[in-house]
């Protein structure tokens, strides 16, 4: 299978522009940190299809560009597991070093960039050989990882240094750093690639970085009614495909903020479960899935009415959600 991999990837990359490529199983995958499993749900009925045992403490989830594989970072197993989307079983294990949490893939799907909190490095893994080909020293406790659309820049947050580093993966070094709010966690990029949004968990804010100069252009504050700044801990963030709307999970404040990207104005706060962190939109942008780490459930939000319409029981401490559609 490995031998075929580059070809498959190349094909997938070529076809990726056409949205119809996805197999569209509709499956919703949820990683739960304390169950050492990724749960697959039927996208329509939201019933459990299969509980897939993985390495210890699965966290971030991401599909290969062709959606045949789902990668799961398993923090306490020091590896990334490869789940076959057709058979719903772990078919490969990629050792990546101590305590991986968040990662991203190169646009061609050949390279995996993973933050390793313990060593304060960004690990660069070649997926064909499943070997590390390099690592870049970044600020303490790197967390969120995002690869630019052209694959030339990898952005990494440093939780303890309150920095976002722009890494050149070829040169293997940090090109620029930008000081953002306290404890920066995760990213969303506008579809045109000009603005990088980063959540600051303790800063209770989102910093907007202009990618051209790698400078902070604006900082968004969140004030859901009845909560203080100390209760607002933004972590998960995602953007609609048209780049008009951003959704920010506010953690302890139990709400998701809806932000108009153009005006940078907060339009709404949607009540969800306890410690809302990971969130993912389906392809149509109509449903937003929110992992609530402390209430052990997932809220399904209707983005048109901006209401949580259903709560799904998830495993213990749900972390991330990936949808195959």
């Amino acid at each position, binding site marked *: 299978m490995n031998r075929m991999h580059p070809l498959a990837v190349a094909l997938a990359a070529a076809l990726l522009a056409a949205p119809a490529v996805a197999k569209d199983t509709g499956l919703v995958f949820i990683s739960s940190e304390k169950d050492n499993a990724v749960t697959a749900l039927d996208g329509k009925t939201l019933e459990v299809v299969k509980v897939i045992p993985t390495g210890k403490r699965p966290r971030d989830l991401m599909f290969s560009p062709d959606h045949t594989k789902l990668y799961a970072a398993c923090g306490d197993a020091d590896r990334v597991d490869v789940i076959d989307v057709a058979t719903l079983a772990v078919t490969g294990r990629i050792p990546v070093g101590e*305590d991986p949490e968040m990662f991203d893939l190169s646009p061609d799907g050949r390279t995996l960039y993973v933050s390793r*909190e*313990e060593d*304060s490095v960004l690990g660069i893994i070649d997926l064909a050989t499943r070997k590390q080909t390099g690592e870049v*020293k*970044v*600020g*303490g*406790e790197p967390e969120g990882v995002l690869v630019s659309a052209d694959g030339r820049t990898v952005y990494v947050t*440093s*939780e*303890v*240094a*309150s*920095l976002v580093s722009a890494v050149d993966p070829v040169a293997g070094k940090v090109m620029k*750093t930008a*000081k953002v709010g*306290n*404890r920066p966690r995760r990213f969303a990029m506008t579809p045109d690639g000009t603005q990088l949004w980063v959540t600051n968990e*303790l*800063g*209770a804010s989102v910093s907007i970085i202009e990618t051209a100069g790698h400078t902070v252009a604006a900082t968004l504050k969140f004030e859901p009614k009845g909560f*203080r*700044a*100390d209760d607002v*801990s933004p972590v998960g963030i995602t953007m609609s495909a048209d780049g008009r709307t951003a959704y920010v999970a506010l953690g*302890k404040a139990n709400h998701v903020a809806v932000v108009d990207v153009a005006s940078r104005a907060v339009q709404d706060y949607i009540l969800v479960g306890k410690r809302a962190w990971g969130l993912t939109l389906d392809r149509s942008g109509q449903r937003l899935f929110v992992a609530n780490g402390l209430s052990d459930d997932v809220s399904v939000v209707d983005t048109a009415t901006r209401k949580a319409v259903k709560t799904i029981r998830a495993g213990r401490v749900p972390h991330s959600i990936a949808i195959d559609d």
Partner: protein
Amino acid sequence: MRRLRLAACLAAVLVVTPAIAAELAIGFLGLADDPRYERTRLEHQFQGQPGGSPLAGAEVAIEESEFAAEAQGLKLRLDSAEAAGDDAASVRGAFDGLVAGGAKFVLVDLPPAALDALAQATRTGGVTLINVSASDDALRAARCQPQLLHTMPSEAMLADGLAQYLVSRKWRKVLVLVGPRPEDQLRLAAFTAAARRFGLKIVDTRSFRLSNDPRERDLGNVALLTAGEDYDALYIADTDGEFARDANYRGQLPRPTVGSAGLAPEAWHWSWERNGAPQLNNRFLKHAKRPMRGADWAAWVAVKALVEAAGHVPDADPAKLLAYLRGPELVVDGFKGARLSFRAWDGQLRQPVFLAFGNGVAASAPVDGFLHPVNALDTLGPDQPDTQCRR
């Protein structure tokens, strides 16, 4: 004459400012042969007590801050010194050595009386002291100083956290056992105030004593000491730790032991697994070859607060840095899930308190439901209207 010397000292600083502009020199002042860190004592691993010198916490913080400091054009330096004894002259000698080396911020790991004397004597020297191990309430009250900050929680904060938890469990009737040391009485005073504040009922207060004197044997007998009274929890004020540890599972009634053993309020616990704590615990364990304890965390967070403040103050100017530390803008990430800052009224770092037992944490205080008009963290320890700090 003293004023003259101060002026000379200031002039010297002004002259060399350009050279040290981008350096933040942090001192760490400890005690040589500190009885708290004597090997046989550490082996007991009493709850709420140090596991070794908290210098290790400061070292870990320096290491993890270097990348951020570099990005800010700041160079970090940590110098440590040990006083030969806890008398004023020895302490002052070691302190002066650190200051001569350029430190304008000194982490202090000294017994309360020695810290008190030093803080009094250096009130106007332009050097900020950060207390990383003494939990005495008086240092934050009548004995407070403008240049003295505290990252170690006070006895009052620890007692308030415990009282909130007992109230939340509806374990309101408490039997108190108190030891023979003056510090035991101070700890009990903090708990008594907390009981009043949150509505616990102390059903009786009894004294214990560990002694070889056969006539005092009853005073060390937990079964006798806990007889004849109904209670929900057994609170023990024992700053030494031996009696409290041995009181576990030896009371008359099947009730939890709290306070100095059993369920103990702590600044930090190695088993906390949220808010990035595992990474910090691992870093500390690798560095110090032992689990992180409260004072280690207090030293760690003191350095973190300094680096955070230095990111907002040009050239790490000491007076402005102190003002920023004490001001409303500071947000320190203490890996306990809350935004930490120093209380303007007594220089205490507001922070959650863990209610910990052997290998776990039952809860983090402020406990859900204990509310405050401004910041729920200020339900722990003296709030602004109650402060006894008049400096």
